[in-house]
């Protein structure tokens, strides 16, 4: 299953980015084998309306779960309609740390 984590950089050691719509990178991890894709967010500097567009990127990549810090109202609506589960991570650690917590089921569903 594909899991997306919002990140400040393009690797698993990068710090998690708390914002969703304007996150610099979306790290999309395949939970079965741990492989991942780092997608640079084209809407990172967007003025407005970025939430739904960023959600569309996740939908296009068949993401089933999102780990982020703060997901705005419009993005939330699109993600919920697309059936993507949202989890909150605000511990300030790396993408790898967030993934570990997700696997251990210690993250709160938001």
């Amino acid at each position, binding site marked *: 299953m594909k899991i997306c984590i919002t990140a400040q950089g393009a690797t698993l050691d990068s710090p998690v980015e708390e914002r969703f719509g304007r996150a610099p990178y979306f790290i999309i991890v395949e939970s079965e084998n741990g492989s991942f894709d780092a997608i640079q967010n084209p809407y990172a500097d967007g003025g*407005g*309306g*970025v*939430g*739904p*567009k960023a*959600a*569309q990127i996740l*939908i296009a990549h068949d993401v089933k779960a999102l780990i982020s810090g703060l997901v705005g109202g*419009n993005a939330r*609506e*699109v993600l919920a*309609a*697309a059936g993507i589960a949202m989890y909150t991570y605000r511990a300030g650690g790396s993408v790898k740390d967030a993934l570990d917590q997700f696997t251990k089921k210690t993250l709160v569903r938001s």
Partner: protein
Amino acid sequence: MRLAVASGKGGTGKSMVAANLAFTLSWTEPVTLVDCDVEEPNLHLFFPATAMRTDVTVPVPVIDEAACDHCGKCEDACQYGALTVLQNRILFFSELCHSCGGCTLVCPRGAIHEQPKRIGTLAVSAPRHNLKLISGMLDTGNPHAVPVIKAAKERAATDPLVICDSAPGTSCPVVETLDGCDACILVTESTPFGLHDLQLAIDVADRLGVPAGIVINRSDGKDRKTLEFCTDHDLDVMMTIPFDREIAAIQSRGDLLCRQKPEWQKAFVALFVKCSTLAGVHR
């Protein structure tokens, strides 16, 4: 003639100047005062009167999901991200919609039609002989001030003398208010903040091709930096209002300086004559 009253920094005294100017001029000719600060209109506080209210609406798309095949062309066309097309659903975010009509045009199935959506109201009143007040009021929570400002100005389109009280700042609502005006009064105060934002406002007026003159409010009697700036930039200081407790008291209770102290009417008439010169209108 159409005059705008703007500032840059908020709270410098735009409404005070606009209200007193309109009050003074209404003794001798018909004046229309338009409250273009539609997010927080306040001129009706100085001129309480029964008003006729009408809705301001903008067109928004309505999608017939039965006719829609979720091709996504409307989402691609929308420059504001207001439409999100999912596999079997369309999500529409009305606060992002700018009513451009693009989605309606591009839909290959004709599945989109437009419906009016209310975003605010216009309140029109006649508080005094020769004075018409048009107050634009944006609905709370709605982000689109510009169409309400447009509607308010439209109501005054055929009136001979129009004074538009602008919102503070220099963004879209102010641009919309200044656009098409013959001259602009920029009200400033002698503070670093006031001067900084005055410079921004002058730049906007300049880009719009609207000649601007200055009113210094809450003057400390010296206004050194502001006066230096005006001289350097060839700007006429058309009137100076002192920092005075009594003036503030009159203003705070919603009264008019020109009514309580009629000697001030001369100053406002003189201001108007200077504005006419600025606008290139011979009076």
